[in-house]
């Protein structure tokens, strides 16, 4: 485990109440319904690394991102950022200093930019909000620099978002996120709305910026190939829980949890022309009514009675952690996976 004290997430939980209104519940005798979107996860992120969360839709990965930035308050657990507990109540000033240091990049570059604002104002807003510029000339210089940093031109600041393509808009989102000089960026599927060639541009840009500005990323994605490419460590989520977490190479070379293996088996890769994949049966169960014990047991080929009854704990193994009874009891052999490099 690295010195993961930069960002520490402990026992983080977030439940959403999706019950019918009180009167309907009383008249129709319906119970309360609670979605356990995030059900107790622990993550440690070291400074300067990229930690990725992967999982299928509905596994709670975006909720984790929103919890970390503070868009939702957690139901339980805490998020400690550089020694500061984010859920503690504190004065306006202290909080805004912390807020300045973490920023978010959203998935959809068409929805996350205000269509009525010029690009200059979009990027200048965080600078103004945190009072980071001395005067107007300084503000213009800062925005110009930010636009150049994401490979746009200062002249683009006069335009409106609709004049840009998806990839360029995502660059604007990145420039806005960088405007408050943050150290920690939370990126929620930043490339999944983009075409592959544009995705490559954005990923390269994000990696360049990370090296240059010493940024730390929490990267949320469902695309394992992208995650493999960009991350230092990877966490795999299933139904609100972290099932496996490991350094990237370990996770992809020696995956342990059956769900991780299933995910790796299902990604179509270019090297697989004509190869038959054995698709895994079943679908992600509803988080409203998650299975007992290990939530993956209905789809798991190795499940036994213990898996149905007892929730597995995360146990350290080979530099990471795995929450699986089968691995703990050595029932499931761990094998190396091989990949062929593309010629």
């Amino acid at each position, binding site marked *: 485990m690295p010195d993961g004290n930069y960002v520490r997430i402990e026992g983080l939980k977030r439940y959403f109440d999706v019950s019918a209104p009180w009167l309907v519940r009383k008249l129709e005798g319906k119970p309360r319904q609670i979605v356990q979107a995030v059900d107790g996860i622990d993550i440690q992120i070291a400074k300067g690394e990229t930690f990725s969360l992967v999982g*299928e*839709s509905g596994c709670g990965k975006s909720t984790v991102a929103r919890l970390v930035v503070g868009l939702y308050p957690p139901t339980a657990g805490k998020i400690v950022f550089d020694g500061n507990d984010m859920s503690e109540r504190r004065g306006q000033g202290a909080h805004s200093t912390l807020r300045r240091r973490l920023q978010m990049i959203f998935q959809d570059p068409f929805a996350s930019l205000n269509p009525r604002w010029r690009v200059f104002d979009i990027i200048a807003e965080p600078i103004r909000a945190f009072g980071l510029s001395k005067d107007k000339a300084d503000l213009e210089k800062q925005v110009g620099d930010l636009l150049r940093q994401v*490979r*746009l*031109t200062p002249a683009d600041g006069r335009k409106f978002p609709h004049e840009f*393509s*998806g*990839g*360029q808009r995502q660059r604007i989102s990145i420039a806005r996120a960088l405007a408050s000089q943050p150290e920690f960026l939370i990126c929620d599927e930043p490339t999944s709305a983009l*075409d*592959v*060639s*544009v*995705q*490559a*541009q954005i*990923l*390269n840009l994000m*990696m360049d910026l990370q090296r240059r500005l010493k940024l730390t990323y929490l990267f949320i994605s*469902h*695309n*394992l*190939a*992208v995650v*493999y*490419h960009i991350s230092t460590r990877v966490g795999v989520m299933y139904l609100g829980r972290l099932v496996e977490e490991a350094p990237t190479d370990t996770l*992809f070379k020696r995956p342990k949890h059956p769900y991780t293996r*299933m*995910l*790796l*088996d*299902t*990604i*179509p*890769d*270019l*090297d*697989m*022309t*004509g*190869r*038959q*994949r054995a*698709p*895994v*049966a079943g*679908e*992600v169960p509803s988080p409203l009514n998650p299975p007992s014990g290990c939530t993956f047991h209905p789809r798991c080929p190795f499940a036994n009675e213990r898996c149905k009854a007892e929730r597995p704990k995360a146990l350290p193994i080979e530099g990471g952690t795995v929450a699986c009874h089968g691995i703990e009891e050595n029932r499931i052999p761990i094998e190396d996976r091989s*990949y*062929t*490099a*593309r*010629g």
Partner: protein
Amino acid sequence: MVTNNAPLLEVKNLRVEFPTRRGTLLAVDDVSFDIAPGEVLGVVGESGAGKSLTGNAIIGLLEPPGRIAGGEVRLEGKRIDNLPYEEMRKIRGARIGAIFQDPLTSLNPLYSVSRQLVETIQTHMPLSASAARARALDLLKEVGIPGAEQRIDHYPHQFSGGMRQRVVIALALCAGPRLIVADEPTTALDVSIQAQIIALLKKLCREHGTSVMLVTHDMGVIAETADRVAVMYAGRIAEIGPVRDVIKNAKHPYTKGLMGSIPSLGHRAERLTQIDGSMPRLTEIPTGCAFNPRCTVRGERCLVERPELMAADASRAACWLHDAGGVGTPVAPVREMANA
């Protein structure tokens, strides 16, 4: 599986245009290809490359004001692009099935699944209501819906995304079509479900001998499903050939860049290959080769003369590199101001 029989579908010099106030936009420009019986042809390209429009033109579902401006589409030797609406309606569904991207919007939320299936079956086949229902049930079982007997009377919202897409596939198969045009059938689905749907499509094609035109932007899906692949760029086919050749040994600089920009699990590079710039808008297609401003190996000839598809090993590529005359004197690619 490629056979030597006459092609099932022939598309020749297809052009799709959109009249606008500022003149006519050519969205699909001179596209020709054919699909053999039982073959899966993948069509890839970035958004706006014209791949979906090509599919829609074939099934006769272009949204006005878009229209076929030239060329022809033949199904089993018979022209279908100039048929009157009612006749095309009989072919669509019966001979050509369609699968769209979003399974929620391609099913009617107000009708039960059985009603939608029975309606489609009875439109194209002379079956009684009970025989049609029996066929609907068989189809649902075939596409792998568990508990089909109960679920047949459910409504679309009662199915999950993957199950809905299975229902859509069952709908497309209703009348035993010869060709299925599948437009991004797995894009809205999670990877594990995506794998199930692809395996299902492949199995059904093998068993029924159905050809598939698979339109997607996901090269991975193409890699494991298609026999041949056509790469589209700015309304034209840049390269077409057997899937292995196009992926491992791309002939067009655009295809090479596209393959390089896809992160692979095989190796982890410091940087991904990227193609600078973006695809031109339809109003600003450059003269000569449409890819030339982003091309790293362009020459003077590429600026003025438009390349047609020409033989390049096992594939065909629209690039002067594969012409005896070559590209001419090299010209540096356009460096966008932004990239300076």
